[in-house]
């Protein structure tokens, strides 16, 4: 009986090989270009300073990284540094499961709470889109647009409105008087 059962199981696996092996991570855009994490200059690797320093989980005003502890605004009631940063090796981040990941894969960390946004991002529907629509799609990390310590998107200065009909007049313009695009070098 057992032999028949295992044979059937084997047959099933042969017919549907994908269903057993398929994991949620299949669609992670690993094959796509992701620019490196936007570290402040000279801050990485963290182990430069943190190696050998005892981990202190206490909520407090930080002397180093004061700009982070002062402006920290990311579910601040529930969270402090070591909920995301790995206390044993500061060059890594730590998921709730205990698994450590590199800063290049920080989207797993964000995706723990922001599941629906993570899903949209994976399909290319959340986040800024560059690259090729039928080729290499460029993905950004969450932290390229959202500061992880105060993730709310900052307001922007708008570019000028179109000319009002009343202001449209014919002007004699020499070549260097033609108005330039207010976009400038914004990429």
């Amino acid at each position, binding site marked *: 009986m057992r032999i028949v059962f295992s044979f059937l199981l084997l047959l099933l696996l042969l017919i549907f090989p994908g269903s057993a092996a398929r994991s949620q991570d299949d669609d992670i855009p690993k094959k796509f270009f992701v620019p490196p994490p936007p570290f402040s200059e000279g801050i990485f690797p963290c182990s430069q300073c943190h190696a050998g320093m005892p981990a202190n989980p206490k909520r407090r005003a930080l002397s180093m990284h004061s700009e982070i502890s002062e402006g920290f605004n990311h579910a601040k009631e529930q969270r402090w540094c070591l909920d995301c940063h790995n206390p044993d090796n500061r060059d890594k981040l730590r998921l709730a499961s205990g698994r450590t990941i590199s800063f290049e894969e920080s989207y797993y960390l964000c995706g723990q709470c922001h599941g629906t946004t993570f899903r949209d991002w994976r399909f290319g529907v959340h986040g800024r*889109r560059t690259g090729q629509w039928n080729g290499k799609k460029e993905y950004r990390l969450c932290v390229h647009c959202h500061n992880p310590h105060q993730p709310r998107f900052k307001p922007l200065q*708008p570019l000028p*409105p179109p000319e009002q009909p009343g202001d449209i007049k014919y002007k004699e313009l020499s070549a260097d008087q033609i*108005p330039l695009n207010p976009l400038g070098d914004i990429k």
Partner: protein
Amino acid sequence: MKPENDKKKACHTLSRRSVLKGGLLGLASLAIPVGSADASIWEAFFQKHFREMNENEIAAVIKRLEKEYADKFKTQFRIKTSKSLPGTLFGYGLDLSRCIGCRRCVYACVRENNQSRDPQIHWITVLRFKKGEKWVNDLEASQKYYFPEAVPEDGHFYMPVQCQQCENPPCVRACPTQATWKDPDGIVVIDYNWCIGCRYCMAACPYGARKFNWGKPRISQKELNTETHYLGNRPRYIGVVEKCTFCVQRVRENPGKYPACVEICPVGARKFGNLLDPKSEIRYIIDHKRVFRLKEDLNTNPKFYYFFAT
């Protein structure tokens, strides 16, 4: 001699044949080009419809235009004539829950597509609405000249409008010279050399997407984009209509780039893809999000989908 004879003699000297001969020669002399510039004027005048030309004829037109632009702008332009890719129908998605009304898209479009800086032409118009007031069915209540210190503003939301690339485009039917048509990949294009400037298409478009060159288009030499498409962003003339082409010069390639407005959007509200590819971003949006199309009741069947990601 009698006056009758006189008249008869005059008739003889100016025979029907000589009149025809002289007249034809005279007309022919008008047609003889004086310089090469005049030749290009005549070639332009007798240019066939874009879709009726064969490859050699198109190549000749491109050569003529590239020379014309080189003389005019003192830079070398590249004018592509790439045809629709097989199996593509372009669709666009715009996330209204993300747009902050910063107008980066408006000016990225201007930079990419060589719109006139003065007189000013924008292919994208960003409309601002007050939350809780009439909007989708009454765009009159919108404001397009808003200019605060920072956006988004409290109590407002924003809706950019550009050519909706209708599957059933009313502008195409209105054009008396067939200077505008819908290509197989769904992009509604304009041949600026066939447009006579009657502006019937502008009256027919329910989205205000078409813009007219009331004056001679002027762009600073250093801001010209010389990578162009015949049906897209090549420099225009006074008296022709223009509009968004989903950046035909960028997207009609394999691999092709995203339209300029998609790339610039700082909040990632703009999405683009192939409606015939079930794995494309635009299909994911249509399958999973709440989408609507502007003025759907007019049966224009746009391929521009507004949606709400959250």
